[in-house]
């Protein structure tokens, strides 16, 4: 498995090459270099996956955990250090495949989408940096390496959101994304510090005896780490950065803010899953609750947004909520007895990455055609963009959970795990799945059917995108159609043993019925030329509509905290205190000194007679003192 190092090195080399020499190259050359290096990475990842899974299970019935590289990068103590290396186990290999596939598609797609943009080479340099960091994150051999690359994906996300650096909205969004996730990372870091001290190592497999003696501290550490994961994965209430992150170029949204980086939190929980189950089982239900609240909140908000990328952003948040719920409802490591959620969550991560990237790339194709993000500029586009239309429909059916598209299979497993955990959880998640189908088809009908914006389309006729953009759409659509039939449980399950996925007919029946019903309602409401029903509903419940449209004012609450509390109530007074009280004190010292000096200055008036008097007076006083 020695070749795996090139999976990290190729994008790194491409980043350095494009970063240092990019502006001297032709834009097209930079795109080719970036894409070629990614193609290399993809081939290597597939080779790795085939040889890893092809080698089969060991004697113990598990896939082996390989560590072809583990370099002591920053030593702290004899036993504690940050290592940088490569860890191969089922989930990291699966992630390699997901990331390289989506990233390659995005690289190819961007050749068409970003054509003629200023900063084309910068764009490809950042994409390479991101891909390298994300791959480094998933193959991390220890929690600290994960943190290192975690920060790097954060910064590449910052750089790419702020790609259009002259747009104020993009600047604000990039700043917000970085600071919110940094805030969450603080929890992650403190969690790592606690973990490192009590477990005596940063590796994922510490000694059991140390963990037992640490007691509650391991729970605390894992809880804090989850905060970091919640920030990156946009869990409520740390989700506020993700919708704004849509200011970045659309392919970036597809790669970073839909398919790969935002699921890092889920991956973190999956990575620490043995510890969660073994030492902090009480935390898992809380993760499930956070996930469910997020999923519900985002689904409701997504129903009323008008910017297609925002709808997709909230749908991403909601779907990650599903994955978190699935992780949280696990009650044991055995997939047959309460551990199904682990497999379901990662399965959904896999299928979601494909169809959500497809949705975003499709949205990019649409935006490319009509030069607007707003649904009002669209409508009736099916005539103009057949390929985009069909692939988008495939993705919508997948996310809605319709058989035989991939989303059906993974969502079904999640719902089965939820029903096994608690019927209430199962019904709630089923309802949210229904909402998902509803808002996705609202989006679909709003774009491709509905009322056409004829005025706009006459001045600028929408057109199908070039091959470089439609090809990735078709590839991803094909994957979306067939991915559900992958026997995912054979490769990945909560205890590593082979798990045969079987469709629970009762759960599948309910979920399909709900999804079909939701699509039907959506069709009834939005597929027509006039939008009387939704308008009537919005007028009937103006408060609710407005609140949902404004995302229930969560952003405003955060804005209040940062602007009013941190700026006005902490920083400004501190700065004032520093300039006036502390510095004022030292200035006062200086002033007093010079005043006193001016006061006693008359004694030094260079008159010899006066000096004699002072001298005599002193002599007399000293004599008197000496005598008595």
């Amino acid at each position, binding site marked *: 498995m020695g070749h795996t190092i090139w999976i990290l090195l190729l994008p790194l080399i491409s980043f350095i090459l494009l970063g240092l020499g990019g502006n001297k190259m032709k834009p097209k050359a930079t795109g080719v270099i970036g894409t070629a290096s990614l193609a290399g990475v993809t081939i290597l990842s597939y080779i790795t996956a085939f040889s890893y899974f092809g080698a089969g299970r060991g004697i113990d019935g598990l896939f082996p955990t390989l560590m072809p590289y583990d370099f002591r990068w920053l030593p702290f103590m004899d036993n504690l250090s940050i290592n940088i290396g490569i860890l191969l186990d089922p989930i990291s290999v699966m992630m390699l495949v997901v990331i390289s596939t989506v990233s390659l598609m995005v690289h190819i797609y961007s050749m068409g989408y970003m054509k003629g943009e200023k900063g084309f080479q910068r764009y490809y340099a950042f994409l390479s940096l991101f891909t390298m960091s994300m791959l480094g994150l998933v193959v991390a051999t220890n929690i600290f390496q994960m943190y290192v690359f975690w920060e790097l994906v954060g910064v590449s996300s*910052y750089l790419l959101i702020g790609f259009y650096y002259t747009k104020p909205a993009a600047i604000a969004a990039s700043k917000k994304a970085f600071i919110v996730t940094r805030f969450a990372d603080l929890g992650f870091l403190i969690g790592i510090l606690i973990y490192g001290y009590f477990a005596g190592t940063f590796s994922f497999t510490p000694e059991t005896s140390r963990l037992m003696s640490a007691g509650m501290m391991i729970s605390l550490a894992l809880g804090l780490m989850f905060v970091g994961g919640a920030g990156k994965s946009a869990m409520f209430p740390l989700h506020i950065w993700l919708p704004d992150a849509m200011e970045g170029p659309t392919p970036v949204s597809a790669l970073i803010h839909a398919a790969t980086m935002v699921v890092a939190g889920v991956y973190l929980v999956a990575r620490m899953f043995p510890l969660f189950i073994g030492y902090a089982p009480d935390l898992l239900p809380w993760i499930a609750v956070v996930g469910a609240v997020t999923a519900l909140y985002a689904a409701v908000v997504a129903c009323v947004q008008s910017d297609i990328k925002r709808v997709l952003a909230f749908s991403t948040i909601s779907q990650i909520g599903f994955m978190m719920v699935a992780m949280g409802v696990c009650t044991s490591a055995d997939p047959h007895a309460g551990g199904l959620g682990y497999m379901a969550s990662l399965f959904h991560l896999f299928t979601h990455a494909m169809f959500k990237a497809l949705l975003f790339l499709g949205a990019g194709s649409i935006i490319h055609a009509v030069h607007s993000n707003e649904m009002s500029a669209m409508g009736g586009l099916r005539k103009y963009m057949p390929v985009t239309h069909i692939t988008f429909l495939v993705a919508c059916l997948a996310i809605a959970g319709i058989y035989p598209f991939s989303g059906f299979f993974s969502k079904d497993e999640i719902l089965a795990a939820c029903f096994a955990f608690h019927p209430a959880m199962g019904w709630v998640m089923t309802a949210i799945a229904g909402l998902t189908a509803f808002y996705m088809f609202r989006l679909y009908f709003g774009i491709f059917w509905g009322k056409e914006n004829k005025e706009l389309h006459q001045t600028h006729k929408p057109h199908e995108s070039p091959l470089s953009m439609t090809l990735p759409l078709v590839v991803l659509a094909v994957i979306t159609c067939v991915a559900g039939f992958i026997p995912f449980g054979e490769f990945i399950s909560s205890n590593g043993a082979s798990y045969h996925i079987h469709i629970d007919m009762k759960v599948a029946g309910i979920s399909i019925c709900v999804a079909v019903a939701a699509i039907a309602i959506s069709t009834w409401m939005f597929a027509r030329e006039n939008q009387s029903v939704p308008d009537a509903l919005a007028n009937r419940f103006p408060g609710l509509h407005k609140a949902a449209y404004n995302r229930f004012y969560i952003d405003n609450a955060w804005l209040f905290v940062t602007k009013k509390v941190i700026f006005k109530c902490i920083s400004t007074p501190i700065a004032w205190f520093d300039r006036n009280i502390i510095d004022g004190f030292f200035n006062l010292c200086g002033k007093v000194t010079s005043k006193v000096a001016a006061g006693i200055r008359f004694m030094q008036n260079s008159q010899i007679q006066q000096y004699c008097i002072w001298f005599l007076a002193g002599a007399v006083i000293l004599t008197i003192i000496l005598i008595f």
Partner: protein
Amino acid sequence: MFNILTIFIIIPLLMMLGLWLSRNVRQVRGVMVAGSSLLLAMSIFLVFDYIGLRKAGETAQMLYTSSISWYEPLDICLSFGVDGISVAMLLLSSIIVFTGTFASWRLQPMTKEYFLWYTLLSSGVYGFFISTDLFTMFMFYEVALIPMYLLIGVWGSGKKEYSAMKLTLMLMGGSALILIGILGAYYGAGATTMNVVELAELEIPVKMQNIFFPLLFVGFGILGALFPFHTWSPDGHASAPTAVSMLHAGVLMKLGGYGCFRIAMYLMPEGLQMWDEVFLVLTTISVVYGAFSAVVQTDLKYINAYSSVSHCGLVLFALLMMTRTSCTGGILQMLSHGLMTALFFALIGMIYGRTHTRDIRQMSGLMKVMPCLAVCYVIAGLANLGLPGFSGFIAEMTIFVGSFENVDVFHRVCTVIATCSIVITAVYILRTVGKFLYGEVNNPEYLKLTDATWDEKTAVFILIACVAALGLAPFWMSDLISHSVTPLLSNIIIR
């Protein structure tokens, strides 16, 4: 007997002679480049030679030691010697002196005099790091401080006389405390030696330690921007010319941390035990307070000065945690902060030289006008907020992991509070970058501005390369330092 370390004083002296003799700007530049590159080469050689000697099995605490009696009655000697910490500091100083030369390449007027004082200052810095004798250290410390007054007062900008006076007086106040502390250590240990290593083996009565430790710590702490004695830093840095800011924030502030560790803590461990928590509170305040103050500043140099307060606070914070890892982290932070802050001040100076303002509210969209400088500023900013791959991350992580090894609950609480600074740092860095580099150009005058010249690029690229080198391959520097921290720390903890 010739000591290789004395080269670090001889070269600056020769440079000053050369500067004095040179007749035009070209000769001045020639002398400066020749001298400072020689110093840089020497310090790189010293690092490798030092590592080689250690590999060969040298176990003495100080290497390259030599001692010449200077003033017998007070046991003052010219004694030199270095360990891993001082070697690292020498390397840092050489890099900054070298890049500072390029950063003030086009300085006007009185170029010759400026570089004379600049070189004198650097000789003081080198002398301080190679000395092992308390009195010699103090002497070089003073040599490094005094030229600052003239450099800021004459070549500075803004309210330069006020700032120069304030900076000099506050630092001189500190050195008065240091002098008392040094005498306390000398007489407390029986008035037999001024050598630091020898003094550490002698007993200083606990009562004396309790009195003299805070004097020494505060004395050096003033230079290390210890709250509440940091207020010279924003004004001083804001008024100083570019290279002086670089040298001052990059190296001189490190003298504070170095002195706290090598003199105050090392010689008076019992005093440290008594005062530890007091100073820990002050340094924790420095870390968070500096960061919060930076958030609302509008002058680029003030932002960076407050950021320095926060980061230098972290140095002293790490040292007070008294674990091997945290102290190593503290020294790494000195290196890292020295390089990063020098980079910042260099860039700010270059931007100010073009726009003639440092107010971030008046600038916008500079990324379009001067892409090279702007990109370097963003890199510096990302390094400053602790991005992996740059030195800041290495230093901060070593500090935090090390601090957590201190099992005391109070120390842990302080650690958690200090870690919050990483978020606030991100806030002020991104706010600054977003305000004045991104966006559209707001002033048509700015469209005429040019990007970096070759000398500016030299300075900036070298500093970025160093920051990245330390961040990408931290293991050798970390090893170099942690081996030297061990003997110091064993004296601090065991007794």
